[in-house]
Each structure stands twice: as C-alpha cells, then as structure tokens.
C-alpha cells in the first residue's frame, strides 16, 4: 500500500475553514426568510392596540366617575366584537392623602391568548 501523502495539509485545512465560514453565512440567510414571518405573527397575535385603547378608555370612564352603563358597554362590546373578557372595577376615593384623592382602577383583560391585569391609582388634586 502506498504511504499516506501528508503534503498540502494547510491547503486542506484552509479549505475546511472556508467551508465552515460559507456554511454559517448560509445559516444567516436561511434565518432571514423566516424571521419577518414569525415577528409579524407575534405582533398580530398580541393585542397591543386593544389593550392600550382599553386602558385609556377605562381611565376616561374613571374620570367621569365610573358610570356603570359605560362599563356595561365596554364589557358587552368586548365580548361580542373582540372575544375578550373585560372586567373593570372603579372605586373613587379608595385612597386619600393630604393633597390628592385617588381612584382605584382594577382592569382585567383576557382574549384567550393574552391576559392582562392592571391596578392603577388615578390621582385628582383635592380642592383646598
């Protein structure tokens, strides 16, 4: 049997290194086709605008004193149009200090995929 030819080993090694480099670049290109897809799926699935809008509306209701018909509107329409369970409790004057009166808002949102809970104190300056 012929003896192993051990010349040109550096060239072989360099060849391997270039191969590995090209392979990693290919992995990055492969990722790029999928990444926009999964990101936008995540954005679509997460009800960011729903929650922001709901939150600002509940605070508006609290500023009006927590009218029960508005809360019923919110609850009924959320269930009918957004398939979301919305509960909110608004307690004016729940906390008091010397200068401010605080309305306590407890907000619950659940659309089956995302659940959001928040307790919030809305301050209003006391009239001197």
């Amino acid at each position, binding site marked *: *049997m012929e*003896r*192993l030819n*051990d010349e040109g*080993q550096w060239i*072989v090694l360099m060849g*391997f290194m270039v*191969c590995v480099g090209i*392979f990693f670049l*290919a*992995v990055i*290109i*492969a990722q790029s*086709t*999928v990444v*926009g*897809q999964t990101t*936008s*799926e995540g*954005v*679509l699935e997460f009800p960011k*605008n*729903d929650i922001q*809008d*709901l939150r600002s*509306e509940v605070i*508006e*209701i609290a500023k*009006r004193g927590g*009218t029960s*018909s*508005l809360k*019923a*509107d*919110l609850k*009924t*329409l959320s269930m*009918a*149009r*957004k398939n979301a369970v919305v509960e909110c409790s608004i307690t004016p004057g729940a906390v008091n200090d010397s200068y401010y009166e605080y309305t306590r808002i407890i907000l619950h949102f659940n659309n089956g995929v995302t659940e959001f809970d928040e307790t919030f104190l809305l301050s209003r300056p006391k009239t001197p």
Partner: protein
Amino acid sequence: MVNDQAQMYTLEGFAAGVLMLLTAYLVLGTTTVYTPGDVHITDMQLQQLGSDALAMMDTPNSHGDTNELVNIINTTDHELFDDSFMANLQNLTESTDTCIDDLQYNASVYYRAASGEVASYPLATSDRGDLVSREPAVRVTRWVTVNGESVSEIPEAADRRNPQLVLVEVLLWRG
C-alpha cells in the same frame, strides 16, 4: 495489528460527509412555502397603519378640545370620516404620485342596545369599500365615548345614553 495508514483520508471523508449532511439539512430548511393565508407581514403593517390612523383621529388637536372621531360619530358625518381617515392612511413624505397605495376600507359602529344586544350601523366606506366578500381584510377598532342622544343612527328604542361607549370597527384591505 490495525493498519493505521491513510488516517488523513478517513478524517477528510468524515468531514466531507458531515458537511454534505449539514448542507442537505440547510437546503431543506430554507424552502418555506408561503400560502396566501400565511402572509402576515403585510397584514401586520396594514393593521398598525389603521390603528395609528384611528388613534390620530381620536386625539384632540389641542388640550381640552373635542376630538374629531367623537364629532364624526355624534353627527354621523360620512364624508368627514372618509376624508380624515384616508388622509391619515395615505399621508406620505413624498408626493402621492410617486407611490400608489390602493387602500379600501369599510367602517361601522357597534353599540349596546337596551336589551344588552349588540347592534351596528355603517359609518363610511371607501370607493370600492362595500366589496368585503373576498378581500383579505384586517380589522382595527377604537373605543369612542360619544353623546348617544345625538347619534341619529341609533334608534331611540335602543336606549341612547349620554355618555355612551361605542366601538368603531374598520375593515381594511389593499385592492
């Protein structure tokens, strides 16, 4: 005794095999099949655009002012909604003739009637906005507190209230 010649060739063979396997795995992994129902990227952009447009309309221009969307619903002003919503959607930094973005929409208002049922009436549509049977639309919504007593589209029997919370729902699509 084990023949230990040609070990370099053996190693090279293994390495080449691993490289070939990895390449095959990679090639199979890159072929993602996009089906029309799976194109979330444009949907996501459209949904964000629509939400932003409604948020712009639901924001007063100055502190203490009433906002545009509340005025539109209180007076059921179809034209003003169309003008304002389309202007917000197609607001570009370039002039409009460099970019044609053919957006269509169909907006309606949902409210809670006296019996606890949910009812609706159409608010506005774009030129071809009534063709909602086949288009892949995204839905954007906005809560609005209006004076229900002034909204002529809500029947009096449906317990109109002041204030009343209604949901503006817009279906938005390209085409």
